[in-house]
């Protein structure tokens, strides 16, 4: 029983991170029907910028650059803001000119962006791993993480923090999309861009906001992922990005609660799969689930449940 609880907690934590990146995929897809493959790289930049804000100095393009050495709780929001700006810029440069082009063109552009960003990161930060500093409030005096014990299962403060932040972010986001004016504009644009434009919705602005939110969520996930696993590295976004994409499809792409559900489900399945079947096939579980889902319920878990796509 303790064993099951521990594996569920492991899965919940992993799933939260998938869910945060999946939100970006799902929101952008909901509005412009584009899979923005660059989210994995924005996630990676989120981790790197968080590190940069937390350390006193760090090598950028081979030069030692001084940084402010801020607290984690301040560093991550800064990373989110910077990455949100990057997200908007990517949309402006690589996707907006292709808005009315065939969808394949935008997809190729997205893949190009992803590779470009990875190369830029490699040039900036080098290709080896960079250590993510310990966070004082989550680390005990002996340098190991603080934790609590729930019926013999261990969970660290940081893991609790990650799950709590994810849940809070999802609730705020849901409120934003369902209850605010901009949220309403988003949902309208998702259903029909040209008609909502005729009704006075500034569609490009709505899309820009979507990119801001999606990218900021990716950066938040990146910062927390870096903190948990203590590293950042230019290709770190590839696998989590792919898993998040699966999570988004699993939950029903275009659906925000779906992304959350999909992320958590995927994390838990991976954990239980490696616990009870075999850890050698861990990565395969995600893809097996994806294939089964596409065969039996192509719209995803919540895909047909809610009619609007945002």
């Amino acid at each position, binding site marked *: 029983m303790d064993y099951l609880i521990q594996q569920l907690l492991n899965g919940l934590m992993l799933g939260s991170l998938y869910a945060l990146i999946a939100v970006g995929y799902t929101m952008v897809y909901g509005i412009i029907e584009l899979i923005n493959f660059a989210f994995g790289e924005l996630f990676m930049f989120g981790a790197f910028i968080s590190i940069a804000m937390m350390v006193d100095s760090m090598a950028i393009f081979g030069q030692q650059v001084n940084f402010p050495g801020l607290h984690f709780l301040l560093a991550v929001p800064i990373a989110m803001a910077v990455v949100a700006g990057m997200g908007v810029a990517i949309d402006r440069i690589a996707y907006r000119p292709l808005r009315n082009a065939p969808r394949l063109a935008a997809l190729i552009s997205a893949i190009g962006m992803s590779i*470009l960003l990875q190369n830029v990161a490699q040039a900036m930060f080098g290709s080896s791993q960079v250590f993510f500093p310990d966070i004082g409030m989550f680390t005990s005096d002996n340098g190991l993480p603080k934790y609590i014990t729930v019926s013999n299962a261990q969970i660290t403060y940081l893991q609790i923090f990650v799950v709590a932040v994810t849940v809070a972010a999802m609730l705020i986001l849901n409120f934003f999309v369902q209850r605010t004016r901009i949220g309403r504009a988003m949902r309208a644009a998702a259903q029909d861009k040209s008609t909502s434009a005729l009704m006075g919705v500034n569609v490009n602005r709505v899309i820009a906001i979507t990119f801001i939110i999606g990218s900021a969520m990716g950066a938040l996930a990146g910062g927390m992922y870096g903190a948990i696993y203590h590293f950042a590295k230019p290709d770190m976004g590839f696998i989590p990005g792919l898993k998040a994409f699966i999570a988004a499809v699993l939950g029903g792409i275009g659906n925000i609660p779906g992304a959350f559900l999909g992320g958590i489900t995927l994390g838990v399945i991976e954990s239980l799969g490696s616990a009870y079947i075999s850890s050698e096939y861990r990565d395969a579980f995600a893809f097996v689930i994806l294939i089964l889902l596409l065969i039996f319920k192509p719209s995803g878990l919540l895909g047909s449940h809610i009619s609007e796509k945002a």
Partner: protein
Amino acid sequence: MKLPRYLVLVLAVVMIFGVVALVGCGDDDTATDETEDTTATEDTGATEDTSGEATDSTDEAAAMDGAPFKFGLAGPMTGQYANYGTSHKAGADIAIAELNANGGVNGGEASYTTGDDLGDPKEAVLVAQKFIDDSEMLFVNGHMFSGATIAAGQNYNGAGLTMVSPSATNPDITDLGKYIWRICMTDAVQGEGLANYSVNDLGMTKIAIIHDDSDYGRGLADAYEEAVVAAGGEIVGREQYTTGDADFNSQLTNIRQGEPELLFMSGYYPEGSKIAQQARALQMDAQFLGSDGYAADELIELGGASVDGMLVSTFFDYSKDDPKVQAFVEEFKSNNDDANPDWFAANSYDVIMLVAEAARQAGSNDRDAINEALGTMDTYSGISGDITFDENGDVVKPLSIVVVRDGALATADVQPQ
């Protein structure tokens, strides 16, 4: 959608930039390869070593009028594995400088020519041919990777040119013939040595294993598991992960079920540092034991407090309290920006010093005499440990165990008996 043409243009420029950046990267690699290849070819073509220190010593060459002590230095000098070749060369440079400062070998000046095999068996064969055709060449220090070593080794053995590999661990290599030697232990031998260390020297009975999915990681784990059971220990868990993974909580939760006293990690430090962190976060208090892939200062840099007290197997202990070792470390640091030498540099140095000793015992700088002497010489005490060859040309050498202490790798209190 104002100025769509302008935006399309911007996009086009960005895409072209992206493509150029990508292709550029590839080109860069190729360009570097080519330039360095040329250098390497020049090295190979030149009759004298081109390394700074050895060139300095040509001033003293007047005193060294015997047959030259010349050898080939083979390994990946350029390309994606160039860092191994760099270490290989750094170790060799120190050996050459030391030999020549002491009047060479049998009165002959020590020098080497590099052969760049890129870690690729096809290239290795070409390098082998070049070395074999050079009649002054006494032996080859290399190759480094098992695949390249097997391919080139067949040619060396056929031509009667001695080859001593500092680092190729595949068991089949020394079966190629009597001219083929190595001074690193095979994965099977290391696995068995570590198992005996765990059970007999550390007194651990409940042991768990976590390993990566490479031939190295799995092969070592297999040998270890078998030997632990043979030594009377119990394997209470064994898990695998994919190289490049970051989350090991599921595997570690499985392992924790068995309540191991010792967790053996077979793989490389980038994952190892995270395994240690996550295991400690799960409140596992088992002793950690890492394979030689963990023996790097980066393990400590990335692992932080969680790797404190971790035992690591290594082929070279840079903190060993031995004047030979410390002199080498000192020299290496002054040549290499204060970095600690890795075992590739140490083994390369040992290969040269070992063969130089064999040449002295043979009394002449002659291919066959040297090969003969390698087989008959007594234990050679190198910086990587005491080296003795078995009849197969494999090394008989004790394992070194280091421990993470105060942010560095230090000699462990308990050494394998």
